[in-house]
């Protein structure tokens, strides 16, 4: 900055002065800062979806179907509530674990392990989407449609297909994103670039998609 030495004010004033100084406001790469801001915006999208769902659940005059029964699987003659959803949730949360490990190996510049863990993450994501497709098929076979279903309020199907569909699109997009980044990791693109920060940025997105699922799980399936 200017030539003369600077003195920072103490206390809260110092915090403000430091934060507004002539440097990057957040000490992170541009891509990472932008991803955080995007995720904040995306949070508002999913919040609006969930708020809309809760609102129509209140406004509808027909009783809401019991999710534990609708989302039950019959295994060995026994009906187990939310079995598939529980497995899907496990798969997605596991994928967050592999993603976190990939980021760690990325910082160690371990090209192969980073790429492998990212491929594993993408594969788990693909498994999740596959199981979601199975769930959709099962419900459609049982007569659940966006405009009505045999179990109760029509909004059940509407909100279900819309919210899980929009989340499923996020997961599918994430799988493609992770695969592209993983291929670049493997062919040494980030070694040449000198930084693996893109792996972490992709990881941020992936963790966000998982976190959103936790909220969908809590508000739609458990409630």
């Amino acid at each position, binding site marked *: 900055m200017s030539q003369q030495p600077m*003195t920072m004010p103490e206390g809260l004033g110092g915090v403000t002065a430091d934060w507004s100084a002539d440097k990057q*406001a957040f000490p*992170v790469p541009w891509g990472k800062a932008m991803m955080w801001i995007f995720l904040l*915006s995306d949070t508002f*999208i999913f919040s*609006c979806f969930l708020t*809309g769902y809760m609102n129509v659940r209140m406004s509808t005059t027909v009783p809401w179907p019991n999710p534990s029964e609708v989302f039950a699987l019959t295994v060995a003659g026994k009906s187990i509530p939310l079995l598939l959803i529980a497995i899907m949730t496990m798969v997605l949360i596991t994928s967050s674990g592999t993603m976190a490990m990939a980021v760690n190996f990325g910082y160690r510049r371990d090209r192969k392990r980073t790429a492998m863990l990212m491929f594993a993450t993408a594969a788990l994501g693909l498994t999740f989407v596959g199981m979601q497709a199975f769930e959709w098929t099962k419900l459609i076979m049982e007569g659940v449609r966006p405009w009505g279903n045999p179990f109760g309020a029509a909004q059940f199907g509407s909100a279900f297909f*819309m919210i899980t569909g929009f989340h499923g699109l996020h997961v599918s997009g994430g799988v493609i994103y992770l695969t592209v980044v993983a291929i670049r990791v493997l062919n040494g693109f980030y070694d040449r670039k000198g930084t693996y920060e893109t792996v972490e940025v992709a990881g941020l997105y992936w963790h966000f998609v998982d976190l959103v699922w936790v909220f969908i799980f809590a508000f739609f399936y458990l409630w």
Partner: protein
Amino acid sequence: MAYVAIADRDHEHELHDPQSFIRKYIWSQDHKVIAIQYAVVAIAIGLVALVMSVLMRLQLGFPDTFKLITPDHYYQFITMHGMIMVIYLLTALFLGGFGNYLIPLMLGSRDMVFPYMNMLSFWFYLLAVLVLVAGLFVPGGPTGAGWTLYPPQAILPGTPGATWGIICMLASLAIFIVAFTMGGLNYVTTVLQARCRGMTFMRMPLSVWGIFSASILGLLAFPALFVSAIMMTLDSVVGTSFFLPAVSSMGENLKHSGGSPLLFQHLFWFFGHPEVYIVALPAFGIVSDLLSTHARRNIFGYRMMVWAILAIACLSFVVWAHHMYISGMNPYFGFFFATTTLIIAVPTAIKVYNWVLTIWRGDVHLTVPMLFAIGFIFTFVNGGLTGLFLGNVTVDVPLSGTYFVVAHFHMVMGVSPILVVFGAIYHWYPKITGRMFDERLGKIHFWATFLGTYAIYLPMHYLGILGVPRRYYAYSDSIDFISPSVHIANEWISISAVFVAAVQLIFLFNLVWSYFHGKPAGGNPWRATSLEWQTPDTPPKHGNWGKDLPVVHRWAYDYNVPGAPNDFIPQNQPPDGSVPAGRDHGVKA
């Protein structure tokens, strides 16, 4: 890796000067070219909306004269006029146009942080405009649901364009939001991360503060519109009932049931109210810089101005239901939203006082940008004061369906930001083109527009108090509360509207003519302090700053500093014996 000022990473920033015409002007990643692309498309589609408003006024002023304007057309004009003006003209022009042009130049950066995404933002915006225009030609025409698109009527038979038109509108909005998100992420990240050396937050020109805050608002408010567009599309195409309760239409019970039309209104206005400030905050910021530069005085209360912008931005998220008083709500909610609405008047009033105190006893140069800036203060105070009426539940309920509201929002978020747009275009025209516009034509344009808009909107307040309902195609004499004076007023308003619309041709002519025949402007014709006037070339070349990035030593408002040799000190002027040290905000040097 420690991340420090971008100035220290400048060597990483490779500059590939685009060579071919297409790379330079069409598929351009240069923020200045993208800004002009945004502005040209926004003004072009804005002209369509202007013509529509003229057609509406012709119908209202001279009913039964223009047989071509049917009631359906009238509603389609209302809808498209409102949506285009708010979203596709003002939002796109302030953020995509001025945001793109000014942020990197005012902050001393080479470009936006992600130029490729910035380019995509424009092309998505163009696609959104094309889908919107396509809506004019689909069977049934564009939607006539009113710009708020309230369901159930927006998607039920009886409303014009309820099948194809509304889908085009919703699709276009969704694409616009994608475009804005890509642009907005760039604007916010650039301001946060890519300022030049010495450019602390508290040295940023207020234009940047306004555009920066508006971009954040956009990123958080547009999601609500995006979600409601998806839900309404599903209701219309797939047959879901998010927004549709049990409805009987044309004597038949429709298959919908159990949805909530109020949900749409909440989602829409959760977007819609911040949208007002997405348009207003950049105008606030830009007008501050215009007033300060052309009155040769530092902006009064810079810190207060910044905090007022931030306070308005935060408050704008908790006032939305004041648009819904007549939809009915719990009185406690009404009380809450009325209170927050009136509180937002406080920071806004601080800004108005500061603008007036900035030019108070200043060395006011009545240049064209300055005239528009002063005109803005008038129209904004007018529109703001009527806002206080409408913010109160009990006053709003009788006035909400009348022309009082039309007068209010046109004054406060139609005319006011547009005056700033004009002022800003005149102000930065010499930098963008390198030539000066014609001063005389500019002054004619100002006076005709400024007085003309008063001729249009002042009588509307009167109509509103008389109780003349808005969104009516015609007022029959058999409605006994419509007095004959209403018809006279309507004729007067319509004639004024045609006049004001025609005057805009002078503006367009001036822009085009001056581009070829204007006097060369030089690098800094207004003797302004902020960085965009200190570029080595005018118009600035790709990369903006030549070899070295500028270094900032002071805030952007050092006009008439005692002891300085000139009446302005540029932001990048280092302090030495002849020039006093920069005034600083944030860090004490």
